[in-house]
């Protein structure tokens, strides 16, 4: 199973690299034209969503093949807004090293795969980031038996890391900055990196701290491992789209803000129908009772109602997938609403 998966990943990676080369050579100009993505999605009848596939809580198919996770919910929300049906999504599992090529080449319409928004990616990859939907930071996991209490004690340690990530760069930076020597062991997929860590090939495993909590559950003995307190980087995770289709980027961006606005306004999956009768103008505009806000996106005016009805608000998705309602039990922290000391701030719909 795993061996097959690795083989598939390698094949996939090569295939994607070739696909982008061929697509660019033969001229996939249509995919980059104005507002074309929404039309292509509607004609196709399904949203192609680039997802993780290996990260519990964010994007992973369960044994029955049903995709679940925080990033998965986001794509379901977009599908709900377009089709009024959150199941009209085709999830394409991507590893870190092929995710951008998959988006560039048009294999996926949106990349919702715990991807850090950095300036270099934003300016040189031909992609745009829509909105930060998860504020994360990189951390380290070690075996308890090593009796390490701080990442600063990791001088000379071997660290397993996934290749082609900001994690790989932060790791080198952090060790250099603290005058520690590093032996990194780099793997193409997160599964391989975790497996090598679990077989003691490395002393430590590093990724975004949300990913550490998810990965810990996959270890042979999760309780024999701890996550160190240091957070060594800023990892604002954001869905991304191809540059040049501004309307499509608006749809993705406002899907996120609609979910945050809903949480701020106390609108959730269970009370959304009652809220249609609300007198509050913010809620009436959000749910499309007043105004034509969805129409200007090329959608219907009840676009946000559909999202909340089918997927829920931001807080619901968070708690269900990675928060207290999940095995991960990640605290809201920076991802709490701005009214509760966090950074999630819904932009006004008006």
């Amino acid at each position: 199973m795993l061996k097959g998966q690795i083989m598939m990943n390698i094949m996939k990676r090569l295939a994607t690299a070739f696909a982008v080369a061929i697509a660019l050579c033969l001229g996939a100009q249509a995919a980059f034209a104005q507002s074309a993505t929404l039309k292509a999605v509607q004609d196709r009848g399904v949203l192609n969503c680039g997802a993780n596939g290996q990260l519990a809580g964010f994007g992973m198919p369960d044994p029955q093949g049903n995709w679940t996770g925080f990033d998965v919910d986001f794509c379901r929300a977009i599908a709900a807004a377009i089709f009024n049906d959150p199941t009209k999504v085709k999830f394409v599992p991507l590893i870190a090293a092929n995710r951008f090529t998959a988006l560039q080449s048009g294999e996926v319409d949106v990349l919702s795969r715990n991807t850090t928004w950095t300036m270099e990616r934003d300016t040189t990859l031909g992609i745009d980031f829509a909105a930060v939907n998860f504020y994360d930071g990189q951390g380290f996991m070690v075996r308890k038996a090593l009796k390490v209490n701080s990442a600063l004690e990791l001088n000379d340690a071997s660290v397993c890391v996934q290749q082609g990530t900001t994690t790989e760069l932060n790791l080198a930076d952090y060790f250099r900055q603290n005058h520690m020597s590093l032996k990194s062991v780099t793997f193409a997929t997160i599964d391989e990196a975790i497996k090598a860590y679990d077989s003691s090939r490395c002393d430590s495993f590093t990724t975004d701290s949300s990913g550490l909590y998810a990965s810990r559950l996959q270890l042979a003995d999760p309780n024999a491992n701890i996550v160190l307190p240091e957070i060594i980087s800023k990892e604002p995770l954001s869905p991304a789209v191809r540059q040049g289709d501004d309307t499509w980027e608006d749809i993705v961006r406002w899907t996120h803000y609609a979910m945050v606005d809903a949480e701020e306004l106390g609108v959730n999956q269970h009370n959304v129908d009652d809220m249609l009768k609300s007198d509050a103008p913010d809620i009436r505009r959000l749910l499309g009772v007043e105004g034509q806000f969805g129409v200007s996106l090329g959608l219907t005016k009840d676009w946000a109602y559909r999202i909340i009805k089918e997927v829920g608000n931001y807080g619901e998705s968070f708690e269900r997938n990675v928060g207290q309602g999940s095995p991960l039990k990640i605290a809201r922290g920076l991802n709490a609403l701005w009214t509760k000391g966090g950074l999630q701030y819904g932009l006004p719909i008006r």
Partner: protein
Amino acid sequence: MPQSMRSPPSSQAARRTGNIALQVALVVIVGGIAYAAIHNAAQNLAEAHIASGFGFWNNTAGFDISQTLIDYSASTSTFGRAFWVGLLNTLLVSGIGIVIATVLGFAVGIARLSRNWLVSHLAGGYVELIRNVPLLLQLLFWYNSVLRALPLVRGSVSLPGGGLLNNRGLFLPRPEFSPGFEYVLVALLLGIAASIVLRLWARRRQDRTGEPMRIFWIAFGLIVVMPAVAFVATGAPLSFSFPTTGRFNVMGGVEILPEFAALLLALSIYTAAFIAEVVRAGILAVPHGQTEAAQALGLRPSTALRYVIVPQAMRVIVPPLTSQYLNLIKNSSLAVAIGYPDLVQVFAGSVLNLTGQAVEVVAITMAVYLFISLVTSLLMNLYGYAIAAEER
């Protein structure tokens, strides 16, 4: 020529001109398509706001690499430097893999033709088992079995001579040279050169007089004893730094990564199975009469194999052997599955993803493999010509 008798010369000339025109047209069309594809790609990249060109080459890489044969640091080295690191790692594992696969393959191929039932069937079993299981699975088997079987750093196995073995790799004492060691090297090189001259002279003498000459002990004296004397005379200018276990890892010594060991094992053992078949075919291609003739001359079987059978078999062996070498080099890119930092892992992996310039990076990577393969083919062809020239 009979053909020119049948058709008048003018129509033949016309046909030739037509052929040339056709070929020129074909080249123009292919060239035109290639140009259009490249031009279109560049235009589309620009329209999609994707950076293009090779400017990234001199940007700082920023990521760490676990095995570097040349100086490399994440903070100061460039993507270009990372490319060379990856390329050298590919060449290292391919080069050593080719040597091991060749030695093992020849041994197994010859063993398979042995009259000893057990030896020939063991060799046959090896070939059938190894060449019928996908290489990637074998690679994962070696990597995971190597990793799981080896002890943790704290329980490292001490090897005779001061080496250490654990799941972080094999650590050997690192030789440290003091001034004066260059005399030892000079003595060694002189010894090797003198032995080669001696051998050529002995050959020529045998050709002239028919008297064989045993030069083994003289060569031993030149290559081993002479440098040893120089070593003692200069006051033993060599010491070793021995690996020791630190808090997490082994410090000091020469490090051989488990990823490297697994890849090398998998590549050599897999390719050796194919080389064994190539060698067997080559030997069987030599007519049996040659063996009988050698026997009739009173040559012992080992001498007959060395001087009569193998030289003739080599002419058959070299072309398919070249293909096996090329396969091994290209298969080394499976390193990506186990985290060995070869060209594909470092350059078409980390560098591609950090720069996002798939077209350039993939094109460079393909060109490099093409170049390595062509050079290997060229060398093997030269060797093929060298041994074919002896044919009468």
